[in-house]
């Protein structure tokens, strides 16, 4: 896969490293390499060592100075090298990967060089290589002076990096430099700093210089790795495009082949036809000319014959004979000359004007690029959530590779009525294989079909697909919400005529009074327009509803706020006695007169007829429910709970389906009764309550009445309620009752 010998590098570095690691154990090869002061290029390690040694010895023979450096090597090399291997390993690995993608000219140079060395191990090439290596040394030295190990001086190119590395190694091995001259950007011996040319230069300890350099290199490596990843991405993308191009062109080639073959065949046929027609014409013309020629010859013969006879006549000496013959001859001549000689050409030598009909070919040629009219597209069935209340996203596809310029999408609402044709049919031209149609009616079925068009024509229409728009958002019945500390009963109405599949209720628990609309809970698949939601006490919730059908879900309804601080119910107007009025706040009931003089008030099926009463609609939920009733001291009333079906013609508390507290004013005192089945205990209360607290506790089977102002317990019915009950209120004298709901159950009501 890699043309540039990265494999060499991969293999070489570990080998070299192990060599270094084993050095203390007396690796002879390594020792010899060191002692010979080899300029060790990584690529060359695999190469014959003996030759290398010889070569290097030769090299060093030319460089006297380096001989001296050898002495320093022993002391420093070990230390320096022991630090190097980890960095080198990492470097080697990343270099290998760089080679896979990076194809810079500089990187090409080294491997080719190494290949050459290995391939042609003769002296000439050795010499060449050697000189080349030296040239490289010089070049690298230049880089040292500019890039080298100085921080930030590292070139972005791999080449200089790699070269620097090599150079660095080389330098270390030769010089055993222990400090780094920042001015000259080269490692030097400390000795030089003291006495040499670097005397006045700024220096750094070599280890720290190495560390900073490594860091810098590492940074660049990271950059390179990023680039590699990027390039790999690009490469894989290009590969995809490559495949696509191949496929597309292959298809086009086939297409061309088919169409040009057709065209060639048609042309050949035309040629045959033309040739035949031409031959026929030629034959006919020749025949006509021949005939004319023959006639001409005949005529000529006759002429010659007549001439001969005439000349013979002139030779006749006998006058009489001559005259006799002459008369006949003259007649014959006259007769002959009378005959018209047809000298005109019976046929023209030129071709008949032939119209060569190439229209068919033209069409064929055209059709090479304008492929035949497409096949009928295939319309997709409705995808989930591809609809809103007023829009639909319709998708379709093609069976074949037909070329399509655009599609013609038609739709109309599905109607059960017979005059469906009257329904407006809409047509749209669409470029894509999908279309979002807007301005539709919610929760309505639409029929869609689509045809494909190109220059050659229009396809047959697809099958018809029925899509349905999402429903309209429902409307929560705000005034019909019932709730308690642990639950809420929410109901709503659909705004659509057509039924929807289900509803989803979304709950948002409001935290910290903020209008926090994060959905904390969803209840899906609700078939009816009503749901009982379990909630946590003393919280605030926003409740929203969505309607759902095949097409998707509607927008959310307007939110309703539910406080789970206490029990909230509403008054069921259907049950109200005709003389009982509910004031605007919805929770104050009043009665102005006990008898209606006209006595013809409307009475509903469900309303109380005798007792001027009304039922509340309490949430059907176990647990505790508390509410309060504010009363006037001089008003007679009954209040408590009753089953939903408590008799409408009786008095509350007079039957076994209602439990209530009754206030009666006697001439001597306020009398209080706690009625169930018409029975009451004998209880005297010294302070007439103004605000009655009522605690319904299903779990403990009790219904308690309190003087809420005093937190005074008045009476408790102990009854196991077989069904859910509803609050009930009745007025027995003109007056008003104010009902308070949503109150936290006071602690003093607990048992």
């Amino acid at each position: 896969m890699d043309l540039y010998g990265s494999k060499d590098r991969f293999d070489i570095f570990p080998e070299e490293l192990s060599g270094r690691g084993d050095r203390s154990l007396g690796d002879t090869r390594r020792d010899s390499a060191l002692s010979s002061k080899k300029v060790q290029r990584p690529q060359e390690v695999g190469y014959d060592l003996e030759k290398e040694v010889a070569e290097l010895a030769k090299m060093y023979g030319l460089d006297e100075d380096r001989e001296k450096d050898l002495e320093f090597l022993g002391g420093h090399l070990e230390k320096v090298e022991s630090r190097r291997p980890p960095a080198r390993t990492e470097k080697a690995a990343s270099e290998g990967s760089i080679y896979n993608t990076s194809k810079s000219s500089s990187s090409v140079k080294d491997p080719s060089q190494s290949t050459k060395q290995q391939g042609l191990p003769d002296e000439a090439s050795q010499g060449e290589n050697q000189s080349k290596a030296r040239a490289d040394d010089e070049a690298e030295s230049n880089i040292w002076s500019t890039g080298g190990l100085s921080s930030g001086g590292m070139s972005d190119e791999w080449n200089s990096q790699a070269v620097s590395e090599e150079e660095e190694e080389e330098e270390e091995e030769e010089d055993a430099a222990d400090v780094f001259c920042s001015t000259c950007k080269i490692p030097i011996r400390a000795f030089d700093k003291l006495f040499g040319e670097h005397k006045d230069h700024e220096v750094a300890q070599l280890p720290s210089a190495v560390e900073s350099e490594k860091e810098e290199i590492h940074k660049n490596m990271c950059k390179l790795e990023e680039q590699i990843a990027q390039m790999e991405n690009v490469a894989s993308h290009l590969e995809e495009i490559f495949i696509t191009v191949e496929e597309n062109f292959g298809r086009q080639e086939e297409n061309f082949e088919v169409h040009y073959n057709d065209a060639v065949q048609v042309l050949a046929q035309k040629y045959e036809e033309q040739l035949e027609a031409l031959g026929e014409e030629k034959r006919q013309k020749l025949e006509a000319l021949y005939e004319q020629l023959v006639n001409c010859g005949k005529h000529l013969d006759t002429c010659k014959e007549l001439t001969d006879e005439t000349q013979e006549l002139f030779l006749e000496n006998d006058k009489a004979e001559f005259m006799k013959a002459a008369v006949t001859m003259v007649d014959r001549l006259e007769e002959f000359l009378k005959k018209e000689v047809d000298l005109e050409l019976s046929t023209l030598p030129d071709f008949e004007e032939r119209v060569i009909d190439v229209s068919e070919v033209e069409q064929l040629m055209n059709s090479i690029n304008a492929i035949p009219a497409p096949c009928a597209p295939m319309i997709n069935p409705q995808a989930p959530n591809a609809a809103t209340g007023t829009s639909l996203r319709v998708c379709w596809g093609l069976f074949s590779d037909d070329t399509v310029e655009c599609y013609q999408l038609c739709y109309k609402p599905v109607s059960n009525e017979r005059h469906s044709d009257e329904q407006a049919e809409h047509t749209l031209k669409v470029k894509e294989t999908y279309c979002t149609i807007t301005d539709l009616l919610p929760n309505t079925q639409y029929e869609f079909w689509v045809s494909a068009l190109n220059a050659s024509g229009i396809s047959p229409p697809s099958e018809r697909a029925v899509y349905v728009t999402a429903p309209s958002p429902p409307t929560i019945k705000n005034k019909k919400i019932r709730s308690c500390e642990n639950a809420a009963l929410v109901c709503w109405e659909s705004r659509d005529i057509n039924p929807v599949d289900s509803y989803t209720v979304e709950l948002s628990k409001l935290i910290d009074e903020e209008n926090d609309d994060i959905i904390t809970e969803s209840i899906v698949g609700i078939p009816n327009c009503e749901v009982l939601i379990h909630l946590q006490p003393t919280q605030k919730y926003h409740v929203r509803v969505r309607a759902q059908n095949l097409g998707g879900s509607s927008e959310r309804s307007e939110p309703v706020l539910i406080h789970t601080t206490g029990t909230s119910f509403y008054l069921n107007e259907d049950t109200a006695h005709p003389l009982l009025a509910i004031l605007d706040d919805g929770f104050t009931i009043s009665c102005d007169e006990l008898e209606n003089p006209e006595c013809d008030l409307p009475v509903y099926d469900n309303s109380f007829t005798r007792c001027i009463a009304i039922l509340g609609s309490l949430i059907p939920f176990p647990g505790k429910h508390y509410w309060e009733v504010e009363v006037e001291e001089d008003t007679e009333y009954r209040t408590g709970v009753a089953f939903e079906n408590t008799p409408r013609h009786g008095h509350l508390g007079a039957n076994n389906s209602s439990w209530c507290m009754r206030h009666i004013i006697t001439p001597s005192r306020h009398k209080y009764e706690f009625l169930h089945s018409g029975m009451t205990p004998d209880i005297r209360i010294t302070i007439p309550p103004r605000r009655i607290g009522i605690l319904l506790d299903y779990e403990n089977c009790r219904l308690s009445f309190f003087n809420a102002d005093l937190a005074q317990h008045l009476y408790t019915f102990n009854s196991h309620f077989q069904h859910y009950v509803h609050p009930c209120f009745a007025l027995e004298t003109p007056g008003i009752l104010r009902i308070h709901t949503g109150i936290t159950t006071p602690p003093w009501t607990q048992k």
Partner: protein
Amino acid sequence: MALKQVSSNKCFEGFQKVFEHDSAELKCKMKFGIYLPPKAETGKCPVLYWLSGLTCTEQNFITKAGFQQAAAEHGLIVVAPDTSPRGCNIEGEDESWDFGTGAGFYVDATEDPWKTNYRMYSYVKDELPKLINANFPTDPERMSVFGHSMGGHGALILALKNPGKYKSVSAFAPICNPIQCQWGKKALGGYLGPDASKWEAYDATQLVKSYSGSRLDILIDQGKDDQFLSAGQLLPDNFIAACTERKIPVVFRLQQGYDHSYFFIASFINDHIKHHAKYLNA
């Protein structure tokens, strides 16, 4: 103020005990019953004082009322003292059942020979709570009082004469207006002397008329078939009327068919314990 345990019986995970001690107020040995609910083992509990009626000792209530279960549930210590000093060798103390022994009437006597020993009002109000608070895991700030008949009278006057001292008060068939009834006239006359105006300080109905303390929530149960009701010994209507006028909240329940006995008390003891628990555990 050394306590001597007379008996101890485990009851509803707590203990019903009887102690004896030398009373400084009454100058005699006195016994009292105390119920320690299970909660008393781990923490301080409110104390509910029960005052028994005529002829009773500390035993009647603890053996007949069946209050222990409710007291255990609500975590109340219930203390039931005796109804009078005993063994004081006062002449005439044992002559009748409605005066002297077993009929202390929860007053501090001012007349000889009763004034030395018959100081049940002070005993119940001061000495006994001090003793209880010193020896049991109580919350001295939270105490209530209730009683039956003469004890009902005692509970009402203790609450009305000491506004704020008791968190709540209730009574079973209390003697509501002793200055108007035979029992009261005899006892009050005997202990306090013939001056009827002095009696008013121990009359619940009279005390209500001048009560202006913290809010009281009074619960009274009365058997409708109580012979002492019809005999005019109890006179709850007078008390109700006074409370209505003074706007003292009372729930008075006239219980159909019940008499004056501990069977009546046992029937409604839970309601009373709950009534007190509401205020003591608030």
